[in-house]
Structures are given as structure tokens and as C-alpha cells.
């Protein structure tokens, strides 16, 4: 199946009309040696055959729906209402390009405008862009914005920021003559005394994630004050679902709030595509990376939407652009927008609360077991760290759990050697009491 409508007959007619002797003559600019190869691809398949292969491959994975999963760590399972899939599957949304022709793209443009509003409302920030690739690159872009803003070359970040985000940050900043300083997190939250000592007038920005990688809620107000005292930007990396209950970046005076919005109506999809969001205070608007949709009027005075402030972008500014991003995560932003509208004002608050209630129920009961022990005592959102007490290592515990139909928490020693035999468990609203109790029962027996 090749999706090519023109037949051999069409081809002949077209070449005839062009008075071209052969198709090959159209390729005369390609040096002959380059034409000399053959592909080892297999023969094409029909739709039923292809889908059989794909179903087999899909079946070769253990879906988090078939098992009970307690994995989180930056990719979170939340229930996605049917409305989201149905609306986002409309091909009017998914088979169009970036809205370069606003007259025939008002659907996409208005939806992005609504997405921007949703993100501003959740974060309490003034403006949002139309999306970046994912949470990690959004954080890196935030650091880059701060570095473009002033002549300072030090970026301070907490060790409790997602380890992969910190690795991405390093990759992005390497070669830009920047120093990245990491602050310890002895009790599962950033050491503010150490932070105070490290922030100086060379500090471009302070980067903190809250809830952080361990699930703990950071003291964002104090950290914000520490950063601002030295003239550094305060960059908050947040989970939008937590903002239904937790204090918003706008309330603790963050300059930039970024994060991963996969949680808003997008599947975990083995890690991607996800949805980086990027929100700022008004004063940084013209330095923001990525696309932005704005409201205006058409020639007849009707309200409408366009891509705006494009003088920041690569297609106009080339090497002077605020970022190299072009294609972004449009369809995922649409899904996020539909998801939040579907849950609504009350639903978003309920959702955050449900995550807190369920995770705390699990935490308290797990802490009562002899086999595991909590590692940090600080308040958390929907994730927490436990240390196995017996002689059985975490990977063996997870193997045991898997046999019982449970996907256990993430083993932490790979990212944090000092946290050996520890696992990070996440409990979202998708876990019933029964499934949590099963985890407790199994862990009590190891």
C-alpha cells in the first residue's frame, strides 16, 4: 500500500504533456554514482497485515492498564475523558500545518489562545507560549532566556530537579561558558542555607522544581526571595495538576514557570510526545521562545486570532531568534486545553485533591510496614520515596511485584547513588483503594 493515486497511465500522460522523454531525465542533476544502490527494505504490506504486526508489537509490551502501575517520575498516568480523544482525533485538527494562513486556521488558533489562557490561569503567570517540546527542554529554554537577559553566567539548580532535566540543561548550556551549580537536597527538599550562600550577583537564575523529583513540595516563597535579592531570575518547574491545590508560581513571584503538561490529557506513550509549557511575567514577553497566538480583528472588524510577535522567531530573525524552535507540540496543547475545559474549574481542584488523598493514604499505610521505611519527612504531592528494609534489593522487589500484576516504583540508585535500595512511588487518582491495598499487602510480605 503506497497511497500514491497516480497510475502508470497517469505517469505517461504527464510526461507526455511535459514533453519529457523519460522520468529519468528529470533527475539528470544527480551524479550517476549516487543512483547506484539498492534498498534492503522488505516488500510492502496490506492494511490487515500491517496492523497484525503492530498489534503483535503492542502486545509485546505490558500496558499500565493491564497491570497496576506506581511509576511516576516525570510521566504520569491520569484518567483521560473520552471527549479528549474524540475531539482531538478530528482530522481537521490533526492533519493541518502550523496556522500560517489565519483565515483558514481559526480553529487551531483559537484553541491555542484558549490553551495559553488555561496555562496562565493555572500558573498565575501573565503570558504563555503555544508550547515547547517537553518539560526538560522548556526548563533549558528558560535558563537560556535568563542568560540572554543579562551578562551573568551562573545557573543554580536544585538536585531535586528531575535528573534527566538536569542532564538536558547541561547539554544545552555546554559551550556557552556557563557554570551550573547544583544545590543539595538532604531532606528531600532544596537546602535553602546552602542556596543562600551560592546565589550571588553572577547568578543568572535559580531553577527549582516543585513538587520536586522526590514528590516533595519546596518552599518556593523563601527561594523566590533568595533569588530576587541577588537579582537572579526565579524559574519554577511545576506540575500543572498540582496547581489545582498548590500555590501557583504567580503567587510566589516566579519570573518564569515551565514544566511538563503531558499530565493534562496526554498519554504516557513510553515517554513522548509530551508537552512543554512556558509561561512568563509580562516583562519577558518579547524574549520568550516559541510561537504565541494573539487576538486581533479582521478587515471587517471581527474578532480573530493570529500567530503574533513573530519578530522573535527563527523564520524572521534567523540566528538572532529567541530560540530555534519551529514545529512544536500543537496537538498536545489542544488536548491539554480540551482536558482542562472538560474537568473545569471544580474538576481541576478535585483532581489535585484526589491525588493528594490517595497518595497519602498509600504513604501512611506503607510507612506502617516493617519492610519499607519513608526516606523524607517533608510534605509531598503524589509521589514519595521508600527504602526497603530487608535484604531483598529493590529490583528483586519489583520483579516479585510484577509477578503479582503490579509495576512497582522507580529504583533511585541510578540517579542518586546515595539513595540505594530506595524506590519512588507515585499514586494518582487512577489507583483505587483496592489496588493500593494490594500493593500494601504484597510489600508487607517481602
Amino acid at each position, binding site marked *: *500500500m*503506497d*497511497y500514491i*493515486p497516480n497510475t502508470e497511465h497517469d505517469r505517461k500522460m504527464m510526461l507526455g504533456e511535459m514533453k*519529457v522523454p523519460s*522520468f529519468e531525465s528529470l533527475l*539528470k*542533476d544527480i551524479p550517476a554514482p549516487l543512483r547506484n*544502490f539498492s534498498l534492503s527494505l522488505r516488500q*510492502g504490506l496490506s*492494511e490487515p497485515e500491517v*496492523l497484525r504486526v*503492530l498489534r503483535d508489537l*503492542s*502486545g509485546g509490551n505490558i500496558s*499500565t492498564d493491564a497491570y497496576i*502501575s506506581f511509576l511516576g*517520575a516525570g510521566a504520569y*498516568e491520569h*484518567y483521560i475523558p473520552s*471527549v479528549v480523544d*474524540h475531539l482531538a482525533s478530528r482530522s481537521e485538527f490533526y492533519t493541518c*500545518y502550523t496556522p*500560517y494562513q489565519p483565515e483558514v486556521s*481559526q*480553529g487551531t488558533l*483559537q*484553541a491555542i*489562545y484558549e490553551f495559553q489562557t*488555561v496555562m496562565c490561569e493555572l500558573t498565575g503567570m501573565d503570558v504563555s507560549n503555544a508550547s515547547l*517540546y*517537553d518539560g526538560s*527542554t522548556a526548563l533549558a529554554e528558560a535558563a*537560556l532566556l535568563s542568560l540572554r537577559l543579562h551578562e551573568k553566567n551562573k545557573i543554580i539548580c536544585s538536585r531535586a530537579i528531575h535528573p534527566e532535566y538536569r*542532564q*538536558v540543561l547541561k547539554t544545552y548550556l*555546554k*559551550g556557552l*561558558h556557563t557554570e551550573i551549580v547544583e544545590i543539595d537536597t538532604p531532606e528531600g527538599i532544596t537546602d535553602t542555607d546552602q542556596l543562600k550562600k551560592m546565589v550571588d550577583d553572577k547568578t543568572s537564575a535559580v531553577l527549582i522544581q516543585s513538587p520536586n523529583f522526590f514528590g516533595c513540595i519546596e518552599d518556593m516563597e523563601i527561594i523566590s526571595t533568595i533569588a530576587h535579592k541577588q537579582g537572579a531570575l526565579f524559574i519554577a518547574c511545576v506540575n500543572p495538576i498540582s*496547581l489545582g491545590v498548590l500555590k501557583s508560581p504567580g*503567587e510566589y513571584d516566579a519570573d518564569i514557570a515551565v514544566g511538563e503538561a503531558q499530565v493534562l490529557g496526554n*498519554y504516557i*506513550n*513510553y*515517554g513522548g*510526545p509530551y508537552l512543554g509549557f512556558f509561561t512568563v511575567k509580562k516583562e519577558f514577553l518579547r524574549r520568550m521562545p516559541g510561537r504565541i497566538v*494573539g*487576538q486581533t480583528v479582521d478587515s471587517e472588524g471581527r474578532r*480573530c486570532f*493570529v500567530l503574533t*510577535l513573530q519578530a522573535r522567531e527563527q*523564520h524572521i530573525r534567523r540566528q538572532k531568534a529567541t530560540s*530555534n524552535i519551529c514545529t*512544536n507540540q500543537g496537538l498536545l496543547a489542544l488536548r491539554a486545553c480540551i482536558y482542562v475545559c472538560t474537568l*473545569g474549574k471544580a474538576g481541576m481542584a478535585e483532581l489535585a485533591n*484526589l491525588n493528594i*488523598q*490517595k497518595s497519602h493514604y498509600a504513604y501512611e499505610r506503607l510507612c506502617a510496614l516493617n519492610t519499607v521505611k519513608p526516606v523524607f519527612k517533608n510534605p509531598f504531592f503524589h509521589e514519595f520515596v521508600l527504602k526497603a528494609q530487608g535484604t531483598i534489593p529493590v529490583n528483586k522487589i519489583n520483579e516479585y511485584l510484577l509477578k503479582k500484576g503490579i*509495576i512497582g516504583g*522507580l529504583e533511585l540508585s541510578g540517579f542518586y547513588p546515595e539513595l540505594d535500595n530506595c524506590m519512588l512511588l507515585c499514586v494518582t487518582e487512577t489507583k483505587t483503594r483496592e489496588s493500593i491495598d494490594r500493593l500494601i499487602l504484597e510489600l508487607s510480605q517481602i
Partner: protein
Amino acid sequence: MNQIEPLIFDKTSPGRRCFVFPACDVPVKPITELLARDMLRKKEIKLPEVSEIDVVRHFTRLSQMNYCVDTNFYPLGSCTMKYNPKTNEEAARLEGFTKLHPYQSVEQCQGILKLLYDLEQMLKDISGMSAFTLQPAAGAHGELTGMLIIRAYLEKKGEKRRKIIIPDSAHGTNPASAVLCGYEIESIRSHANGLVDIKKLKEIFTRDTAAIMITNPNTLGLFEKDILEIGKIAHTMGGLVYCDGANMNALLGIARPGDMGVDILHLNLHKTFSTPHGGGGPGAGPIGVTDELASFLPVPGIKAVDKLITESIGNDVQKEYILHYDYPDSIGKIRAFYGHIGMMIRAYTYLLSLGKEGVCKVGKYAVLNANYLRHKLEKQYDIPYGKTCMHEFVISATRQKKKGISALDIAKKLLDYGFHAPTIYFPLIVEEAIMIEPTETESRETLDAFAAVMIQIASDIEQQPDRVRNSPKTTPISRPDEVKAAREPILRWDKK
């Protein structure tokens, strides 16, 4: 349907609900018992309070204001708006993929890892590159990854080179990606024939040049026929060749960048490999590299290893797919997790469907369609570069501009005829540029219909230019005031 759809926020009616969660089945505690009071949000969140039918109608109506590939022809140059097969969508939505967590152990993910591994092998085959990473999120992200690899490679050799050469016809992401890595851009003017000026290139490619970033076929739709020479110039100076493969559709089954002296290549799965554009994304921009550069790829990579299975009837060796971190010179991580898996599933499905013969037909029919359309329009419009083209061509509306009608006017008039507009004002080296890429998934009849409209527009411009002004008139809105949008930015809804 040409009515303004109110914002969903303006449809709010207090207390209205759409989705409800199951009742909390664990004992509920007051939130202040679990979290400190000063951690809690005080600011109200003004989100819509609407019913399910409100949400469904709102977004359905919005969708109806969009033009898309499924509506009609989308000749947007450089964007390869080919048909997005429905089989791909069905495959990508299978639960074994969508509900898989990136931190599940590899034994739980053998299906997807095999798919990714096989996709890498297919892309290697098609492109002629030796090793791939599927991780970059889009073309521009692939460029950035490529630039990081170039820098790391040269640094390992103890060289600190400062410059990247980029033709003036290149896409804006090219220079933007190179500066992100701290490089200076040296722009090279295209030769009068629209190709890289080889003489000039020889002069400016020095030991301070890290690489040339080239697009082949270039954005004029022309094959860089001196590509082998370009490679030689770069390599003689110890530099590298980066190829922007956004235009790979032209070459499928026809030629392979890996045979052209290209060291690093990015592909756009959302162009060449039929994954949908989603109204702006997500895409995917895998990059392929030569053997010499493989050790610099971002982590993790995917490997197939032999696994001994002991069974009662005897031993058996099976392939096991694993994520590995042993790229000794790796540039590190370029994003969290492993990339846009959903896009990779679609591209893989597409390649399985096409197979070898299908892939070879893509390039041929893409080139045939473009040349056919070019031929149909070359009398009425100026086509400043080339006599034939690859997968796309660029018209210059200078003749029409003299009559007071710009490329923009022509683009907007096309909307009234029910066609999407081509890319306009790009590449920057063509005045009043109109860049047309038909792709192979369009029929002769569609091309004829589009050509007839373009010819009609050209003839109207000659005889009654007023007919072409002030379009579009039949679309949900007329031309927006973009200046106002930028001068007085309104970027979000606010309660009145």
C-alpha cells in the same frame, strides 16, 4: 458556519459540570492536615464551567474553521503535506503503546523497543547513514543535536572552530540552531543558478569552519549537483557536512545522503514519513550519522542483544532489545525519555505499508508531480531558478507585483478557490516567492485543478487585478490585522 465561535471561557455558567471523578474511596482528610497552609493556592483559577455538550460543540465548531490535508490540496512548500494514512493513526493508538511508561523495565517493553530498533534500521537503509538516534523532537531539535555532535567531535580532536557556513537559501532554523551551540554563522550567497557557489565555498571554508549546513535538495527544489565536491571541500579542511533532510521526500529511493559525503542528516518524520502535523506539531527529527560520529550520539541508544533462553526442550537464542548508555563520546541527553514515540510508530507503520517498491515510488512521484505542476505554471509565472525541479519549485510573483498584486494576494486568492496557499516569502532569496510542493499523494486531476486556478488568477491579474485584491472573502474570517496584534498584544482571555 462563518460565525465567530465564542471563547469557551465566555460560555461558563457557574456550577455546570462536564466530567466527574469517581468518589474518593480512601478516607478523606482535611487538606490542611496533609499540607502546610502556606503551600496552598489562594488565587482563584478561572476555568470554564461547562457541560459536555458545550465542550464537544465548541471544539467541533473550531475544527470546522480549519483547512487540513483531509479537506483538500495543501501545496505548502518545504512542509511536505502528504496524506496521513489512517492505518498509522490506528497503530499509534494501540493501548500497548499509549499506556506504556518510559521507566518500565526493558523486559516489559520488548514490543516497542523492537519497533524502534527496526525503524532505525529502515532509516539507515533509506538514508545511507550508519547510525541513528530517534530522539530529537523535530527538525530544529535534530539540527541542534547535530551541531552539538559536531562541536563535541571537533573538541575531541582538540579543535575549537568557530564558524558554520549556511547558504542564504536555508531555512531559519539552521542558523538559529547553530548559534544555540555558540557558533558564528557565515552566510554564503547562492550562485546565480540557485546552488551553492563552489568557488566561493572553497574560499571561505577554512580551518576555523566547523561545518557547512546544507539542504539537499535545497529550498528552491534544486538538487545540489556538486554535493560530492562540497563534501570534499569540507573534509579536506577537517570540517563536516550537516544535511538538513527536510526535503528528503524528493530523494526517497532515488539517492541517499549517506552516499553524498554527508556526515549528519536529520529527517522530519512529520514530512517525509507521513506523520500528521497536528496543527503545528508534534513532529520528530531523527538524525543519522556516519560511523565515525556514532559514539557522539545522545543517550540512550537501542541495541539488540542475543539472549539465551533455557527451555525444557533445549536452549534457544532470542533477540532482546535494550536501552544502552555506552556511547563513549555522547553529547548527553537532549530531552527527557526517548523521543516522540507516537510519531515513530506512525512512521514505522508507513514504511511497513510501503515496503521497498513503495518507498522507491514516493521520490519518483513526488518529483513527477512537482515537475508537472511546474510545467503547467511556467508560462504564466516566473520561475527564476532551474529548468526542472525535484519535489518542489519556487515561483516569483514579480511579474504580478508590477500589476500591483503580491505573492500574499495570490496566496489569499487561492483560499477563496478552496485551496490552501503555498509557502510564501521563503526562501528569502526569491522576490515575492511562492513555494509549491505537491507531494506524491496527489492525483493528476488535483494538480490540474490547482493549475487551472493559478492560471485563472494570473490571467485576472493581467486583465482585472481588482478581482484578486482583498481576498479571501469566503473564509471564516477575512484578512486579520497583524500589526494591531503585535502592537497591542492580547494573548489570553480575561474576565470582563
